[in-house]
Every structure is written in C-alpha cells, then in structure tokens.
C-alpha cells in the first residue's frame, strides 16, 4: 500500500505492510498519527526505555508510562535489504532497516527513508511518520539531508 511519509524535511511516499494498534499499543499509535514518538519512561528514576518495556530495569517494581520523546536520534547500524523482508516492500527494494538510538537513549528498529549514500554510524536522523490510507501510522527514520526526495 502506498503510504505518505511526513517529516520536517518534506513528504515522500513508501510502500509497506498494514499495521493495526491493539489495546496495549493504542497510546503509541495514536501519538504516531499525531506525529509524536512515544517512549516508555520511569517517573522514579527519570530513565527511558523502548516501547514494549513494561517495568523499569533499574527501579524495583516500578511500572513505566508513556511519555513523548524529542523525535531525533542517530544511526547505530543498518542493513540494505535486497530481498523483501515482507511482501509489501517488494516495490521499494532495496529498503534500509536500521537501529536508531533516539536522543533519550533507547534503540528503535526503524525503516530509513532517504539516500543510502548518506548512511554512516552516528548520522543524525529525524523521526518521521508514515500515514497510510489504511491502518495505523508508524515511525520511520529520515535522513534530513535528503528527506525531501519523492
């Protein structure tokens, strides 16, 4: 399905699978639809964790809550997939999959939008959001220098 990606660098379109929210992820995907990345946060130690983390690894028994993140990060590593990891990517090959360290510290596995020539360790990325016609919005990593390509 063709999906519009919005970031401060501009708009582009990508293809990808359709994703749906469930009860545990509704807050995350609602925020994504509004262009905000939510992470897990501990009110006791002010520590951050990746989505999907229930309890603070540092504070005994402390449950984490959702909190808005700044929406920037840097590349830890990446791969350029020439075989479609899901059939819905077939028209976009090759696609770039990366681990992004967001400013708050957690690592996220994100698809990277932009030129592969700009890939390097520590490259600054902006968290953009894909807004498909069908299904939930989801975050992607945008290399700001060429995020305006379409």
């Amino acid at each position, binding site marked *: 399905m063709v999906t519009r990606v919005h970031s401060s660098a501009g708009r582009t379109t990508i293809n*990808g*699978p*359709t*994703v*749906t*929210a*469930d009860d*545990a*992820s509704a807050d*995350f995907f609602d925020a994504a639809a509004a262009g905000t990345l939510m992470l897990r946060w501990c009110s006791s130690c002010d520590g951050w*964790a*990746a*989505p*999907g*983390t229930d309890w603070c690894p540092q504070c005994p028994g402390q449950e984490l809550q959702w909190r808005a993140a700044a929406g920037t990060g840097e590349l*830890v*590593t*990446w*791969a*350029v*997939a*020439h*075989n479609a*990891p*899901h059939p819905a*990517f077939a028209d976009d090959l*090759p*696609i*770039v*999959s*990366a*681990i992004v*360290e967001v400013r708050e*510290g*957690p*690592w*996220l*596995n*994100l*698809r990277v939008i932009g030129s592969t020539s700009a890939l*390097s*360790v520590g490259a600054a990325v902006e968290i953009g959001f*894909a807004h498909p016609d069908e299904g939930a919005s*989801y*975050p*992607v990593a945008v290399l700001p220098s060429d995020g305006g390509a379409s």
Partner: protein
Amino acid sequence: MDAAIVGLGLTDVGKVYGRTAPDFAADAVRRAVADAGLGLGDLDGLLVSTGTTGDVDVSLQQRLGLRDLRLLASVQAFGATAGAMVAQAALAVSTGVASAVACVFADAPRRPKESAGAAYAARRRYPLAGLGALRTMAGANPTVGYAMAARRHMETYGTTSEQLGAIAVAQRQWAMMNPLAEQRSPLTLADHQGSRLVAEPLHLYDCCLVSNGGAAVVVTSAARAADLAQPPVHVLGFGFGHPGGATDRSSQFGLRTGAAIAGPAALRMAGVSVDDVDLLEIYDCYTYTVLVTLEDYGFCEKGDGGVFVSDGRTAPGGSLPVNTGGGQLSSYYLWGMTPLTEAVIQVRGQAGDRQVAKRDVAMVSGNGGVLDHHASLVLSPHRGGSRW
C-alpha cells in the same frame, strides 16, 4: 563432567523431499542408537529440539516406542539448542537421572522447485498488530539482523566484506573433501564478491544453506562409553551466554556476543585454554558469526577477527582448522547439529580426507536468534581429568 557422546545419527540431508520433520527425527535417533551399538530399548532419556516449526515434540517417544523414560523434554534455545541438549544429557547421565539419552534435531523447510530463501520466508509469521509490528514495519528479519550486526562490526573495527568472504572460501575448501556436503564445487573470493547482495553487507555466499534432514547423538556415562561400538567423544565442558536485547546504548550488539560468556565458561569447566584447542566447529548461519565467535572465544583480539581469518589460517592446511566439514555455509544446515556432528566425526578420527591431524580438544558453538543465544561445548577423545 563424566559423559560422552557415543552415537551419531545423520539422515539423508539437503534437498530431500517427501519426509516430514518427525520422519527425519525418528530416523536420526534410530541411526544414532545403532551407531552406538545399542538398541532403542536401551534409551531411557530423549531430548527433542522443537526446531523452527515445533513439528518435532515429545510425542517422538510414542513414534519410537520408547518405554519408561526417565528424562523426556523438548528444548528450545534456537541455534544454541544442540549445545543445551548435550549439556542437559551430560548432566543427567553424570548424576544418574538417566543412563542413555538421545538428543535430536530435525527440520524440513525446503520444498521442490523453491529457493532456499523462499523456504523460510514462506512460513515466517509477520507480527502486524501492536508494538510487535514495529519490527515488521522496520523491515527486520534474521538476515537483516545479522547484516546489521556485521555492519556495526565493520564500521567499528574496519572488518571488510573480503574478510568475510575468506571464511566462505576456506569452508568451501573443507566441504570439497566432505562427501556429506551439498556444495562441493570450488569457490573463489571473486565468486563471493560477485554473488548477489541479500542484505548488505551480506552477499549470497555469506549466508547458510537451507536443508531438510535430521541429526541425533546419544550421550551416556564415560565409563559405559568405553564398552560401546564407537570411539567415545567425551564432553569435557559446556557454557552458555544470553546477552539480552539490543534495546539501548548498553548493548554490545554486533561487537560482542554471548560467545564471550559461554566460551570461557566451557573452557574453564574443561580445564583447558584456547591454546589447547585443536579444531573449532562454529555455528555459521552467516560468515560473520564465525569471525565474531573467534574473537569472543579469545582466539584473537577483539576487532582482529577479519585479519585473523584472511590468510588461510582456518582453511585446510592452516594452523587452526575451523568448520572442517564446510559448515552451514557449504555442507548442510541442521541448526547446532551441523557443528556438533562434524565435531563428533573429527574427534573420533573418522573424517577421511578432511581429518585434522590433531584432535585432542574440539570446541563447538551454537548461536540462536540474532546473536541472542550462545552455547559452547568442549569435546575430546580423552576422558575428563586424564592427561594427554
């Protein structure tokens, strides 16, 4: 530890169609027991790897007609399962829980007229709901995960694709002497570099085969092993390492793996050091895992793995034989049973043209998930505590 591998069973492996994973599992156990000079009725323990599909389970007992087992369980640590099963069996026979334990893995993902890549892709389940869907949207799969690990190693230490290719070339040289190997035609570094990109930085020849088949071993006490049909392969040590998810900046993903925990633990239990190791059978789902495991075990300094493997050191005639049957890259892919079966063959001295000269200590690895699970075994023709 007072345990030995006394039986080895390997079914027809590779593009073998028309048989299910339980078919292969039953056949492998039957062969392993016969190889040991035992009957199925001598088994009182059975450990089954549930594999990629869960098709093989504890109902294998009924299939084999085994009665009054004292140990029966399915074991799942992905590519580290073979090591986990052998360790559990060794503990069982050392403590008297059971006296003869079969450990088995089997899988049948390949279908006629279908590529190896399609074999797994066709039955992969993609989470598309909830937070689990984020990895699907990111384009993550096991090959992409290992490609990201290899990329981080390259960017950090200067490891090159040619160095990864040297591993594939060395293992093909071993495979050419292994009648059990699927890929036995010569492979050059140029072939590796020219092969299509699957997930950059990984080329096709950085990736393992996909095979149908089954493998089993029988473990019993060292004392009993001496009276059986085959030269005993003593289990001197084992260790495991599970680093946890690549979820934040504390992760060493791609740089340091569970091998750094498992390997030294296994060597310590065996009372030997890396300098005593004569050959290695390393889980090689991708060339990169051989390189990073050699580093993590301590055969070279961290970051020097690329240089270490690039001069033929691990190839036939080299000073440190590694993956002497061709490994998962060139022989057959049966999860952790690939390195384990070849280690048993070598330690027994039954490897024919590819037999290594010195085989007092062999080290075997298993690796599962995307570097999430690691198992190490130390095997020897000599009983633990003895000198050689």
